[in-house]
């Protein structure tokens, strides 16, 4: 009896157009296995955010299908899907809405039925990990941008999802927080898909990368290999930053 392996994420022929008519995705195919950490690279306007929004059903496929851990994303499975997939938005303002940081972080676990002391513990733990415990009682919209980004990450960590999808999580973080986030991600035993423009960060964290460009997957392979291919990178407005050299293994 062979084990039957279910991919964490399976996207087939996904196409999507925004209500105003702009088509952003033109048939995206990708699979991510359980426990993988994958970087999603690509130029501005490539459709990364649009793709990511499909992974927990915030946008619903115009065409094609999205399957999360074997469950297709459909109206009736949304609740389950959203418990499994934790999404950190590109804009922290999209993520935070409760009157205090504490309440905001507690919101997800509370919806999943966590209560009382257990809830307090989960909240405290998540805030501690991102270094925002002191701000627990402040309103999230009165934090600095980077602080909001950290709280946004905490709201998702608190839900302990199986699959973590992060849309440019390191932008606006100070360098130490950026490294701490990398450590958190490495310490978790979850599948990670991370959108980023920070190629060294992708290399540091993710074995594998995808390049999304013009609404389709243009390349898929080991990060180290993709980043060594200057021509491929240049084609998709990617390039290694000044002063950076791919470290030897």
């Amino acid at each position, binding site marked *: 009896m062979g084990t039957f392996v279910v991919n964490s994420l399976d996207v087939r022929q996904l196409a999507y157009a925004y209500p105003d008519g702009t088509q952003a995705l033109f048939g995206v195919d990708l699979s991510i296995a359980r426990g993988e950490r994958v970087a999603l690279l690509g130029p501005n306007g490539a459709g990364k955010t649009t793709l990511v929004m499909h992974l*927990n059903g*915030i946008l619903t496929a115009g065409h094609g299908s999205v399957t999360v851990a074997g469950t297709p994303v459909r109206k009736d499975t*949304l*609740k389950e899907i*959203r*418990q499994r997939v934790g*999404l950190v*938005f590109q804009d922290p*303002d*999209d*993520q*935070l*809405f*409760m*009157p205090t940081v504490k*309440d905001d972080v507690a*919101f*997800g676990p509370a*919806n*999943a039925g966590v209560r009382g002391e257990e809830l307090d513990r989960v909240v405290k733990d998540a805030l501690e990990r991102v270094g925002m415990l002191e701000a627990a009682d402040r*309103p999230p*919209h009165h934090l600095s941008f980077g602080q909001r980004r950290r709280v946004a990450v905490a*709201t998702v960590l608190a*839900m302990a999802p199986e699959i973590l999808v992060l849309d440019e999580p390191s932008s606006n973080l100070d360098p130490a927080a950026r490294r701490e986030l990398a450590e958190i991600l490495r310490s978790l035993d979850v599948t990670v898909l991370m959108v980023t423009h920070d190629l060294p960060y992708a290399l540091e964290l993710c074995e594998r990368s995808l390049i999304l460009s013009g609404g389709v997957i243009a390349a898929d392979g080991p990060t180290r290999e993709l980043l060594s291919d200057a021509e491929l990178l240049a084609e998709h407005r990617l390039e290694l930053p000044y002063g950076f050299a791919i470290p030897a293994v």
Partner: protein
Amino acid sequence: MGAGHHHQLYLPGDSVVHRLPPQCKLLAVFAFAIVVVATPRERFWAFAAYAVLLGAVALVARVPGTYVLRRMAIEVPFVLFAFLIPVIGLGERTTILGMSLSVPGLWAAWNILAKATLGVIASILLAATTEPRVILIGAQRLRLPALLVQIAMFMLRYMDVIVDEMRRMRVARESRGFEARDLRQVPVIARSAGALFIRSYERGERVHLAMLSRGYSGQMPILHDISASVRQWGIALALPAVALAVWGLSW
């Protein structure tokens, strides 16, 4: 809350009516409303003529009748009220379809229905052919005090911001496993509603500061020329002028 539906108020198009400068249209609609209201209620055919006039405007502007009908729902409370007046009204009574109705009440009901409906349609046509922002620029041209125009500008913007923030908050809630199914969830909505006010305000405030930092001084710069030619005034004022003529001829 339909605070955002002003997006659907405007029907983009390229008709003569659409192209008229906003100040002309505004004045025309106000003048028309005054003529309508000033028409004695016994002059049935004058009201018919006004209705035909508005129909012609709608035709020229290519505003579909179904659209106008849909938006007329705003009138419903008063239509209901109007139908009640003859029943609860005082004075001499008559019997129609087996119901005892007040005669002055019937007149009053007709008066309200006819005038309110014509007024509503005129406003609908104005809003359907002119973008809200542009209407305000027109109002500014007509010397509506700058402070009022500014408040109205911000109000329109904030309607967007509120709707936008509401959408963001809803998406954020749902993506963390929240479903508004039953009453137990009301407190959550209520708590986040408190945050909504501040959030909308603060986003709007930052945007306003961004405007200030790009030289905004209380008046929108005119990016597109909207000064009106004599001909355009003529076209616009044709509506109230014809209405006035009808009014004059109606005795």
